[in-house]
């Protein structure tokens, strides 16, 4: 009963609702409560007041009142630090599982006063602090570790500030319909399956690891063992060893052909295949139990393949 009432109260007060577009922090959206330090100050002020009365300290009264009124004004300042801030959810680029997703949020401060020490906090405790200069837009990336393939939604974020004196905690909840696609974590290493010639000619074995064909720049998702550490040591940046493969071959990456017994393992294996195939400039297609993707190449094709793998077996809309 009490819990139900509490829920209803919280629902009424905080109005949990998912926003899209631009959110303006109106008065209704901002909550404010004293912090522990604020309560400590209140206690200190009561002590001071008793001292002033006891010792008839006129200037003591002045100081006590001055501190109390500064605390009151700091509440207004904390409120103002959030009020009328305009927030819009931005993009969140897809990442591989195990990487950190970066949710971009656009903050626009329309007023003439700079806002200091705004903090975004996730329920898991992660925080990002930033300032919002006057009459400016700025973009803040909120990092979140991707631990599972599929869609990653940050859920409700808290935007709070305790500026200027740390006596009041002013906050607002931001729940945007933002999500980030998380690809499966690629397997460390996987040998590409042999290409199928479209004309049905005999299969050729895949080029072995020793057919070194040169170096290319590192792309997120490349396997660590393929990084050219010697080149890195020579300060040429992160580069990946490329191995020869005939161009123009069409490759079917088959879910059933992945050696791992479990689905996640197979998806990881296939992810590695996709990355390698794309890196080697092959044309490749996906064969999944729930359908297939005809062969193709290029970044959009790769992304589509990874997307299929990421969402395999999941409800796509979620």
């Amino acid at each position, binding site marked *: 009963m009490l819990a139900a009432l509490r829920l209803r109260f919280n629902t009424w007060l905080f109005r949990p609702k998912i926003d899209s577009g631009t959110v303006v922090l109106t008065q209704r959206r901002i909550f404010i409560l004293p912090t522990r330090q604020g309560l400590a100050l209140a206690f200190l002020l009561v002590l001071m007041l008793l001292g002033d009365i006891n*010792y008839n300290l006129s*200037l003591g*009264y002045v100081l006590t009142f001055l501190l109390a009124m500064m605390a009151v004004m700091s509440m207004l300042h904390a409120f103002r630090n959030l009020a009328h801030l305009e927030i819009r959810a931005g993009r969140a680029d897809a990442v591989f599982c195990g990487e950190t997703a970066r949710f971009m949020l656009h903050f626009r401060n329309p*007023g003439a006063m700079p806002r*200091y020490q705004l903090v975004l906090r996730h329920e898991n405790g992660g925080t990002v602090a930033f300032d919002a200069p006057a*009459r400016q837009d700025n973009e803040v990336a909120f990092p979140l570790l991707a631990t599972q393939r599929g869609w990653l939604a940050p859920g409700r974020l808290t935007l709070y500030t305790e500026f200027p*004196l*740390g006596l009041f905690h002013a906050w607002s909840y931001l729940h945007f319909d933002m999500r980030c696609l998380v690809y499966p974590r690629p397997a460390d290493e996987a040998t590409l399956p042999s290409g199928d010639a479209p004309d049905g000619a005999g299969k050729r074995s895949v080029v072995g690891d020793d057919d070194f064909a040169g170096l290319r720049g590192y792309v997120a998702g490349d396997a660590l063992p393929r990084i050219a550490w010697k080149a890195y040591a020579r300060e040429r940046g992160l580069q990946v060893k490329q191995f020869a493969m005939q161009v123009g071959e069409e490759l079917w990456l088959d879910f059933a052909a992945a050696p791992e017994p479990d689905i996640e393992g197979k998806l990881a294996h296939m992810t590695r295949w996709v990355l390698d195939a794309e890196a080697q400039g092959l044309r490749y297609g996906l064969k999944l139990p729930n359908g297939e993707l005809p062969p193709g190449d290029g970044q959009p094709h790769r992304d589509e393949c990874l997307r299929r793998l990421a969402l395999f077996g999941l409800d796509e809309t979620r």
Partner: protein
Amino acid sequence: MTKPPIYALLLSILMVAAPHAEHLPPWVSALCAALLLWRAYLTHSGNPLPRRWLLTVITIAGAGGILIEFHTLFGREAGVTLLILLTALKFMELRNVRDAMVLIYLACFIVITNFFYSQSIPTALYMLATLLLIVTTWVHLHGQSIAFKPRLLVAGTLLLQAIPLTLVLFVLFPRVQGPLWGLPQDAFATSGLDDKMSPGSLSRLSLSDEVAFRVVYNSQPPRRDQMYWRGPVLWNFDGRTWTPGRTMRTVAPQFADTAQPIDYSVTLEPHNKTWLFALDMPDRLSVAADLTYDFQILRKEPLKARLRYEARSHLVYHANLLESERQIQRALQLPPGLNPRAQELAQRWRAAAEAAPSPQPSPASGRGGNRPLMGTDETVVRAALAHFNRENFHYTLEPPPLPGSNSIDEFLFETRRGFCEHYAGSFVVLMRAAHIPARVVTGYQGGEYNDIGGYYIVRQSDAHAWAEVWLSGQGWVRIDPTAAIAPARVERNLAAALPDTAALPFMARSAPQWLRDLRLNWDAVSNRWNQWVLGYNSELQFAFLSRLGMEDVTWQKLALNMTFVLGLVIAAFALFMLRHLIKRQPDKVQTTWLKVCRKLAKAGLPRAAHEGALDYAERVAAARPGLAGDIRDLASRYNSLRYGVERDELSLRAFCKAVRAFHP
């Protein structure tokens, strides 16, 4: 914690604690300074903070030292000392923002402890500056990314906004008259008159420039030589020191034939003693106090706060015409066997007076007397005053010490150099030896007129001692032997009565006129500050608010008014701050373009609501080929300024200039 806020905290604590250095035991000051320096060094070098056991040892040693020094850890002096020591020690474990907040709160608390010792205007200003530093540091702790200037701006804004609110609270907050609990005995250690007098005690006081009290005369002020502010009356003499003995509070004194009433109000600085000062002889007082049998005004409790009271005195009087035998005996007591030469001198005078025929009434030779003296006793009094006047006596602030047990003899017959306590004391001894009841009265004499504020300032340097003798038919009569030696002391002031080489408080002597004026101006401001800011208590609050038109002030009413006014002011601030927040900067480009449109509208070519700038320009160009070039140029500039990627000040200014020059 980064380094800058630590330095700022160190500076804040240094500033709030510095005024305490004056009364802290030197070893505590040194220890605290060393701790702060150590912390500054650790911060600078990045070395780790000291270990906990070391801090514990220092804390225990420090507390032990304070215990030995003060014999307690509580009370004002010991408490403040302990507070400062612990604050300095807290620095040694300052690791995070929470520790820093503790230090900020401690700093605020130390500010208050400073007001125990001084609440003057300079102290208030200094503490305000310190508070600004503290608040700036405070803001720094919660916004470490902010540069110094905006930080100062935020702190200054907070402080400035709080000032009007503080004013409202100060005036309207229902005042409770303290104390709520007992004050420690050391709460007010001020210099001032003591209830003991020994050679040197008053001359020491004369070096103090401090204000004892201020007086406003509501009627014509008395002559300077009538301004005797009566304080403790001293009856008992042990050969060196005069003490009051037992005072009778219950028996009321009797005054007869009073004349020349004077009404005045006194604002007395707290002196932690029970007596109040009034002119000889007081008979009416606006505050609760006892008028004792020897005409002192005594309160029940020592005076801990500045007190303002109205009083009436009569300059002409007969006081206690009928004196009880016990009082007469008290006023004749002398330490037996001491000062034989003085006794012998007095008895010689007595014999001479009894032998001679009674003289005709004549004006008093002693300045302090208010009636002509007659009879044998009067003759002896005059002989004594004449003796002081005739013989080679000197009035000096630096009398030679009188180490022997016969100090009166030494003074009267050997050194002959003394201050008022020497003259008053020896005069009373001479009188008692001549069998005339006499006693010493201490208090203040004179005062400096402040024509800016219209009041008299009586300073500690005006402290004075004189004598009173009881004469039958006249009661107690004031005799001031100092007036016989140095009339200028009574008629003008101390500086006039002393040789030029004597050490005197700063500016007591011949400071330039402008400096004197400055000093009087300053005192007038201080006086107003004392009366209205420091003396603002429940009484004054009620009086002030009634004058403002508030009828029958009660604390409920005060609280209600206070809440209302505070709410109003805060709402006004909120409105202003939030309006400032959403006020959009008008778009200069847009307004300038609208000017173009208005100019063309006047020329008969108004822009249609649906028309974009370029379309409009084309239409204008078609209608007025002479304007074609200008208007196309303006429209394209407008478009690129308003919708272009970048807007630079120069082209905006050029655009404005072109619009001004555009005359269709």
